[in-house]
């Protein structure tokens, strides 16, 4: 009996190994294809831009004008600008200082806004009275274009980092708040009943059932809200600053330096991509308990 079973197992192992190898190979090929196509998109867009700028002559009438370098710059100029910033620094000082300042403002605002958003979202989600009382005010506050509050902060908090953190935080707050609130409202009533029967007190109910359950909503909102934190920090700098990427872009704009504006944007985009990767890693850690999605497309 045991010999028979052993024999069958051996016979079945071989095709199984082949199958695994084939899956792995297919997976590798797909990855290569995606990376290749990504590169192609970059080459087409940047190359087209560069080419358009090269063949254009917009200074004299009657000539072909596809991309006006003066307004739209061109990739090679932007790359050169970045290189100058890296090697010789900017008008405001070393480039890394500018990146660091904007990062500090963004991360500071992101953290403050997220924490406040979760606290208020959970509190209002748990208390019906509080939600009913505060509801209209929060909706009204949410309807205001909140970046203008940045102007107020620039007056009240001055030109240093506090005003930018506050601007970023207020943008982040509402997104996280609404998600946390909704997350708490959508908690499975069976799970709450089960926890109460098992003996959970109110605080345990909040920390062990409500918050973990709302966490997938909250984390999903962090993806959007980091981008908003960056917006808040940069807008805050536009309202008045001495350092930072926003200020760098503002200065470039005042000099009609399109390449400088684009170079600043490129740096902001790089920061956003890195942050996105970090948040995805955090998400994977915090929501390990969720079944992996089989057809996963991440953007």
């Amino acid at each position: 009996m045991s010999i028979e079973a052993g024999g069958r197992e051996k016979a079945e192992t071989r095709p199984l190994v082949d199958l695994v190898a084939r899956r792995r190979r297919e997976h590798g090929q797909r990855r290569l294809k995606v990376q290749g196509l990504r590169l192609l998109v970059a080459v087409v867009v940047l190359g087209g831009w560069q080419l358009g700028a090269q063949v254009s002559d917009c200074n004299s009438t009657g000539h072909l004008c596809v991309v006006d370098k003066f307004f739209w710059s061109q990739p090679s100029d932007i790359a050169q600008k970045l290189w100058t910033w890296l090697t010789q620094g900017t008008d405001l000082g070393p480039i890394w200082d500018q990146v660091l300042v904007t990062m500090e403002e963004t991360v500071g605002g992101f953290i403050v806004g997220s924490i406040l958003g979760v606290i208020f979202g959970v509190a209002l989600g748990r208390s019906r009275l509080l939600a009913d009382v505060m509801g209209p005010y929060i909706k009204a506050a949410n309807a205001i274009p909140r970046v203008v509050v940045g102007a107020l902060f620039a007056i009240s908090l001055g030109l240093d980092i506090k005003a930018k953190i506050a601007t970023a935080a207020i943008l982040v707050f509402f997104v996280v708040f609404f998600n946390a609130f909704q997350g708490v409202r959508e908690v499975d009533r069976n799970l709450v009943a089960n926890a109460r029967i098992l003996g959970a007190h109110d605080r345990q109910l909040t920390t062990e059932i409500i918050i973990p359950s709302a966490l997938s909503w909250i984390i999903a909102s962090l993806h959007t809200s980091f981008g908003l934190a960056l917006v808040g920090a940069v807008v805050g700098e536009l309202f008045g600053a001495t350092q930072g990427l926003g200020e760098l872009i503002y200065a470039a704009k005042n000099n009609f330096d399109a390449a400088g504006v684009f170079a600043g944007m490129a740096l902001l985009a790089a920061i956003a991509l890195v942050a996105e990767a970090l948040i995805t890693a955090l998400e994977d850690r915090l929501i390990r308990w969720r079944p992996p999605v089989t057809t996963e497309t991440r953007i």
Partner: protein
Amino acid sequence: MQPAIELRGVTKRFLTPSGGVYTALRELDMTIGVGEFCAVVGPTGCGKSTTLALISGLEPASEGEVDVFNNPVKGIPDGIGYMFQADAVFPWKTVLENVAAGPRYHGLSSRDARDRARDWIARVGLAGFEDRYPYQLSGGMRKRVALAQSLINEPRILLMDEPFSALDVQTRSLMENELLGLWAASSASVVFVTHDLEEAISLSDRVFVITAGPGTVKSNYKVDLPRPRNVAEIRFQPHFIEIYEEIWKDLKDEVLVSYERQKRGAA
């Protein structure tokens, strides 16, 4: 026999979303003794689950009295366990954390709770699965987690709301036998809600038949089959069939009433 649970003249009304009043239970009387295994059967929507919600204190009665160990129920009484119909294990906790939750909520240190949880996980046959998350388990295994989660608190009253209805027939009779084994080792009173009369008789000492909604007790039957029982085989005994026929005569009318009503409601 000393009563563990007493419901006297209990009526439960709910407000429907459209503003009407829905009566789930009407003038229901039920007494369940200490250590007794009772099954509650009745047609769909007759208020079986509502009965459990009242005993557990999750819902207050609109009228009448609900006593658990001679104390009126206000909030969740001590020593209650409840296995829900739907999956109610916590998806973000591992098997070990799920089972350890009850003792931790009762003030045991994390470490002691885990030690006790390991013991109970082994008792329901899940040793080796401590670190899995619920989504990694089969439906039957999740039910085992729920069972261990309830039993670890050593409830004196265990409420079960069609706990095995989602399982396949083989897994189900396996789980039923295990439940009987674990129950025999405790002194808990069990209220087991089901729509399956065969399951009701094979498990319990007493079967309550509930009328079509609004539910009230139509009759109750003593099941004097010897214990220990093997759920998979007991149904072939002549005496089992006699009991089944007797209860079915009662239950059939109610099922028909409920069915007619649903048909009219749908038309």
